């Protein structure tokens, strides 16, 4: 119950950051997707089931404040990221950003393909250069800070540290 409350609080905090705070920082093209970063990180720490669940809630929140089909895409990315749980060291610094990079890239391409308004009004090269690749790179960089933080929170919540194998 405590874990659910903490995760809920983190998701609400992310919503505030994503919707109200980030636009004020004038990052231009670089628009990070904290919902995806958190979904992938939780999936890497806890597995596919958590990835699907957190991806669903994160996607729902994101669709409430934007447009899209994140409610379907985020669980898929969470599931795929969760497949790597147990295959990489949880304390690894390199792999989580790489997985977030891949998930952002794949998620971006799927978003482009399933949305009529993007598919017919944007060229693929424009979407790749201006939205998908910058977004994937900034997500991967931010994951360097988000993943250790979420791992630390998870370790604090449990008696047995998850970083130790």
């Amino acid at each position: 119950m405590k874990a659910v409350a903490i995760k809920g609080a983190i998701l609400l905090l992310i919503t505030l950051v994503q919707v109200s705070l980030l636009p004020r920082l004038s990052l231009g093209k670089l628009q990070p997707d904290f919902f995806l970063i958190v979904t992938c990180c939780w999936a890497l720490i806890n597995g596919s089931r958590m990835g699907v669940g957190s991806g669903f809630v994160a996607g729902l929140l994101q669709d409430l404040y934007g447009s899209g089909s994140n409610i379907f895409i985020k669980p898929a990315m969470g599931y795929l990221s969760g497949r790597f749980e147990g295959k990489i060291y949880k304390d690894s610094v390199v792999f989580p950003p790489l997985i977030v990079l891949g998930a952002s890239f794949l998620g971006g391409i799927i978003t482009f393909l399933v949305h009529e308004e993007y598919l017919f009004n944007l060229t693929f090269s424009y979407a790749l250069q201006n939205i998908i690749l910058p977004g994937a790179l900034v997500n991967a960089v931010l994951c360097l800070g988000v993943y250790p933080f979420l791992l630390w929170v998870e370790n604090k919540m449990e008696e047995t540290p998850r970083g130790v194998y």
Partner: protein
Amino acid sequence: MRLFRFKFWHLGILGIVLILILSWAATYLEISVPQPFNFIHRITAPFHRSVTWLGDRVSNVRSFFTNYRDFQEQRAYYDLRIAQLEKELQMMEEIYRENQRLRSLLDFSQRVNYETVGARVIGMGADSWGKSLLIDLGKRDGLAPRQPVISRNGLLVGQVDEVYARTARVTMLTHPGFVVGGIVEREESRALGMVRGTPLEEGLYLMDNFSWDADIEEGDVIITSGMSEFFPRGLIIGQVETIQEGDYGLTQEVGIRPSIYGQTVEEVLILLGDWGEQE
């Protein structure tokens, strides 16, 4: 011998395929997030307002210290400008009175009766694809989908998309799915076209459906044509920057820079009025 052995990951792949099909179907059937989930908007709206309020205060204090000299120069400039504008305003009032007299003589009705309501921008869309704004007014304030949204100085910002109880989402005119009828403001031209949120390059958006011989020049101002029932005539959209041939020379494709592009939108006006038949 078993030809197929079921594994857990097969279920995962099946799930992803199903999700993609549902995702595609939801997009094409225009299914949005179910209404019961809209309570999240109600819960989080005060937090968004608080963050925006706090951000404004921090920005004000910071800009006071960093831009003090600029403020002084700007104040001198604005003092001069106000004096000029007051003179122009007097002239305009005279023209307005004359115009009213002539209208009554010709028995013209008012062209457009705008009823507006002001709203604060409390957030932006949560993804990098669709450019949208979150405003602090909703259904309770008389907002409805498809109402036009303008800036304080009358520039077209976009259109109300989703309306919740106390908040609403506005699709900006730079959103890839946005379309509005535009007309060249210049009296000698009045060429009609469609302005789309299709980006041509950084800051330039497509305006098409012009005939090959339409009279368009770089620098022309584009305003809303008033041909659709959703936008009144005369809202400023942007300025023509590039003109090129389209459809093998049968049409012209124009790159316009929206007047709102690059501006920080903090407050907007929503047009509530029914403009009905327009000239």
